[in-house]
């Protein structure tokens, strides 16, 4: 405890100096700057310069065709080759093209942004983790002792997801869906954890990006609706309810059809909101240090200690959330897939009574 106080005192000696450099701290901008996608990857700043990784920008405009350039071209005055980053409107923070007649046009933006690069890094990491684990199995037989260490951990998690989530939720042909759901789970888990680590190559807010979560939910959506069996579609279009609920006005089928779309929507928003909220809280707590530091050491030091304590607490909580959200996403996907592969009700009842 004494040591902690000593560290805090030393830290507090530096904070006023840092705080006085910035005239005023725009908390909203800091938080949204970290949560949002960007064209370059800001690693860290010193007093003199920002350390930034430049990323390629790829645009296709209907008017002027393809454009390729690095993001450092945008830094100088925020515009290049007729493109500039808008500040407001529906596309705030995105590149738009100003046509010669003065109108603005949103191009097809295929830039390798921070999130896109984060996705690639996380995918590579995921590949390395799983393939390294897979390598162990190439040299061992089932009669050998179970693996220990890292391989054992991965095997344990895989076996747990398969046995506790996929097998009971999907049903009898769970083996077909296991690789997809496992990939989903590990991608979300790796991305969530990587999002909590603040420094490059981690730190991209991948699962807090709605396009990423939408993509994952769309995978579930397509899997459910493409591989859904007759029983699934019958339950939607002609469910087992009194006729007046479905005959003249298709009330229940209407609700069921809306349900098809609300399921992936809920998946998208749940993961996105959870990760965004967690990041926002941690960032806000970090900002507390810099805001209170400007108010003198009497307020600054205790508040810094308090916010450090809460940051550690929140980071631990976020680690838990990282796992839980990956688990929940996988479980709900598995349940939706399981519902789309259900056997006939009567057969199921028979099975239950037999058991």
């Amino acid at each position, binding site marked *: 405890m004494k040591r902690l106080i000593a560290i805090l005192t030393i830290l507090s000696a530096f904070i006023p100096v840092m705080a006085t450099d910035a005239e005023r701290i725009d908390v909203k901008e800091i938080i949204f700057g970290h949560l949002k996608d960007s064209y370059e990857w800001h690693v860290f700043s010193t007093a003199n310069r920002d350390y930034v990784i430049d990323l390629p920008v790829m645009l296709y405009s209907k008017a002027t065709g393809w454009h390729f350039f690095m993001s450092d071209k945008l830094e100088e005055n925020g515009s290049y080759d007729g493109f500039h980053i808008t500040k407001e409107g529906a596309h705030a923070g995105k590149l738009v093209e100003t046509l010669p007649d003065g109108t603005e046009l949103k191009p097809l933006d295929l830039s390798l942004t921070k999130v896109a690069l984060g996705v*690639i890094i996380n995918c590579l990491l995921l590949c390395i983790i799983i393939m390294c684990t897979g390598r162990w199995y190439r040299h061992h037989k089932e009669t050998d002792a179970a693996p220990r260490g890292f391989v054992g951990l991965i095997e344990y998690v895989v076996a747990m997801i398969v046995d506790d989530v996929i097998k009971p939720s999907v049903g009898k042909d769970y083996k077909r869906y296991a690789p997809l759901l496992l990939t989903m789970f590990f991608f979300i888990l790796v991305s969530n954890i990587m999002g909590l680590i603040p420094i490059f190559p981690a730190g991209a807010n991948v699962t807090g990006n709605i396009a990423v979560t939408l993509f994952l939910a769309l995978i579930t959506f397509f899997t459910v609706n493409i591989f859904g069996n007759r029983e699934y579609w019958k339950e939607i279009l002609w469910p087992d309810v009194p006729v007046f609920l479905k005959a003249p006005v298709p009330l229940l089928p209407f609700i069921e059809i809306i349900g098809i779309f609300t399921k992936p929507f809920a998946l998208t928003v749940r993961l996105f909101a959870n990760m965004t909220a967690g990041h926002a809280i941690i960032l806000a707590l970090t900002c507390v240090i810099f805001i209170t530091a400007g108010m003198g050491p009497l307020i600054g030091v205790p508040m810094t200690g308090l916010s450090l304590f809460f940051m550690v607490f929140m980071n631990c909580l976020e680690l838990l959330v990282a796992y839980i959200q990956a688990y929940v996403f996988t479980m709900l996907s598995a349940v939706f897939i399981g519902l789309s592969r259900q056997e006939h009700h009567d057969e199921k009842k028979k099975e239950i009574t037999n058991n």
Partner: protein
Amino acid sequence: MDLLIPEVGTLVWMLIAAGIVFFILAKWGFPMITDMVDKRSDYIDKSLDAAKKAAERLEGIQSECDALLKETRAEKARILKEATDRREEIIAEAENRAKEAGEKIISDAREQIRQEKEEALRGLRRQVAELSVQVAEKVVMKQLDSDEEQLNMIDRMIDDVKTGR
């Protein structure tokens, strides 16, 4: 609000990266792990089954062993008892035989002694007779020098014989 609008570019990158990763992992990654876990759990089930069977067999062998041991003990006791009986029998027989042999030796010895005694008696009698004959001869030769004396002698002898017998 722009935080809530999905960007098409990100979706495209996601599709490419996640698609490749899914392809790789679904082909070479996860099946290896899940197959191995399944195989190992099968193997463990089989091993448990085998262990159970082995334990059962072992129990059977154990009881068999116990039965065999009991039988062996009974056999041993029987053999020992038989041996004891036989020993006593042999000893008794030997004693009988020794007794018989001893008796025979003793009776033989007695017989021999008796015979030797008779022989000795017979020899003695013959010697006495011879001696008495020689004595008689000498006496007769010496005393029959005179007729009177001869006659006296004969008379005495006849008297002796008459009174002696």
